[in-house]
């Protein structure tokens, strides 16, 4: 089989196939990209294993992948912000640009968002892909295309820390030490948090969190969220001002509320069951705000500046590497939970 535009397609639950597809042509305002690196996200794995996330259902074959970087190979009509040969990070969601959410600057909430690898829209785990040029960000020479791909999860961290209000001197609790917990740890520290505590049920993940800068870690063994909260408070020496919940596990969300200082803020990044029982009175009477976080908005330039300046080092997040031809193996490795970020190299 020719593999000029080898593409990883999820045909249906459990069925990923590598197929050659036509090379797409850029329309007005778009660029064609020779894909370089694509990281695997938990959502990609979830669609593969379950065929849906909430109301997003895989009803037709869909290309996977959305944490990506590429090299501009062709310019569509009217593109002035990029040149052929530019190495870029690709922000995977293109909104409608016209609705009130878009016009208010919250395009992540656009009801007509076209997001890579969220059905029915194709992702970019392929050799070639086309995208709107203004959502492609040129990488400086010293930032690798692997780091470019990592700007996607890093942007989740930027958005969550902004929504929480993390700032100089903040004490922060991050629940969950997976890739999203880790990027939140990195961003919180970079933006001036003085103390960050990370919780998880997995010892190995907590070791990684410490290596990446966590001031303290708490291994969750108790089923009582108040007890876990007490352990966090003891480890930090006080209640955190902000808590970034990245696991989606209901007991962890409850812990987040109990632990947070009065007047503080809990942001919910992790996604678990759609309905969760929470200590709402505790949150209300202590004015602990609860804010949702969905993907990111206007974060890519910030994330890029943080990586380019060295304020954040995302390279250690990559623990496994595969070539595009071995994507299925890459997905199986991710499913086994062996590492942190599995990165796929797409060039021939």
């Amino acid at each position, binding site marked *: 089989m020719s593999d000029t535009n080898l593409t990883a397609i999820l045909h249906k639950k459990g069925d990923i196939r590598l197929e050659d597809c036509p090379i797409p042509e850029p329309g007005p*305002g778009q660029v064609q990209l020779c894909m370089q690196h694509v990281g695997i996200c938990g959502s990609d794995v979830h669609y593969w294993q379950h065929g849906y996330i909430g109301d997003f259902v895989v009803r037709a074959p869909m290309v996977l992948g959305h944490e990506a970087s590429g090299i501009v190979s062709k310019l569509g009509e009217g593109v002035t912000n990029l040149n052929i040969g530019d190495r870029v990070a690709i922000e995977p969601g293109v909104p409608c*640009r*016209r*609705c*009130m959410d*878009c*016009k*208010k*600057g*919250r*395009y992540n909430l656009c009801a007509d968002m076209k997001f890579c690898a969220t059905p029915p829209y194709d992702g970019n785990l392929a050799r070639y892909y086309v995208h*709107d*040029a*203004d959502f492609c960000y040129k990488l400086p020479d010293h930032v690798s295309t692997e780091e470019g791909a990592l700007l996607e999860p890093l942007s989740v961290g930027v958005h969550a820390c902004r929504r929480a209000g993390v700032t100089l001197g903040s004490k922060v609790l991050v629940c969950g030490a997976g890739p999203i917990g880790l990027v939140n740890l990195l961003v919180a520290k970079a933006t001036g948090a003085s103390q960050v505590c990370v919780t998880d049920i997995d010892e190995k993940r907590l070791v990684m969190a410490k290596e990446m800068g966590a001031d303290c870690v708490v291994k969750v063994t108790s089923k009582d969220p108040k007890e876990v909260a007490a352990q966090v408070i003891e480890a930090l020496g006080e209640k955190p001002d902000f808590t970034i919940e990245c696991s989606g596990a209901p007991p962890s969300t409850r812990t987040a509320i109990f632990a947070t200082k009065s007047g503080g803020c809990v942001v919910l990044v992790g996604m678990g069951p759609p309905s969760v029982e929470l200590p709402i009175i505790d949150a209300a009477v202590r004015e602990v705000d609860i804010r949702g976080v969905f993907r990111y*908005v*206007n974060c890519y*330039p910030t994330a890029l500046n943080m990586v380019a300046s060295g304020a954040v080092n995302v390279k250690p997040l990559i623990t496994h590497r595969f070539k595009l031809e071995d994507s299925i193996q890459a997905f199986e490795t991710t499913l086994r939970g062996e590492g942190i970020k599995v990165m796929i190299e797409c060039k021939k």
Partner: protein
Amino acid sequence: MQKVGICGSDVHYWHEGRIGDRFVVTAPMLLGHECSGVVSKLGEGVTHLKVGDRVAIEPHGVCRTCDACKIGRYNLCPNVFFLATPPDSGALARYHVHGADFVFKLPDNVSFEEGALIEPLSVGLHACRRGRLSMGHRVLVCGAGPIGLCAMLSAKAFGVAAVCVTDIDASRLQFAREVGATHTLQIRPGQTEQEVAEEVTKLLGGAPDRTIECSGAQFAVNLGVLATTPGGIFVIVGHGPNKVEFPVVSLVAKEIEILGSFRYINTWQTAIDMIACGKINVAPLVTHRFRLEETLDAFRCAKSGVGVKVMIDCAQG
């Protein structure tokens, strides 16, 4: 098109052919950007409007791809298209074409004139949002022209405790009182900014928490800094001389925030809702009416300054 109001900028382009160095009339262009109409045809892909819909028009066209557009501050888009700002042509005609997402349906109880007034009202609304006006505030508005009046009407709708409008012209202040200003103050020749600041404070029962400058006068810039209470916010809307001397040490010592306010963002639906529920009454601002065929007379009237808002009726027959 139904109604188009005349703005000071339209008069300025007509009379001077330019505003500043950036906006120069070098080719024929239509004037008019405060407008309302009836949808007569739909372009491809338009789903939220129907032929026959009565609408108000936000004069913007924006690129939607730059940083300013993406953060929701499209009024700052470097490639912005704005009706009747050269080289962009306006809407003073029987027919006009516009980006559908900048066109807003009017409820039955909002007139075409009110629809056209949403433009200047939006300047006031945006200034109040920029200034984070809120219930209970004492507010100073400098200038009782249409923009000052719209800032006053907007401020009242935010539930502020009192609005004092200043001007040099007594008849404009009389009009301001008629349309809702709780206090007015005429600035007398020879008065210093400090004196006026003290009088405003006495009238309002305290220094203003918020000041909105709508006159373009250097005097008002100084007044804003001197009058505004420590920790307050001073919003500058008026376009006057570009370089102004003002008491910066007072600004620093009082931690006053000075914020520029330029046109508006995302105000049309709010303005429609506020007019429709009766919380803002803009209709009295229209003092003179002309037909499209009488446009030159309309402009002469606007230039003379005898009224507040001159409205042109564009419907045929």
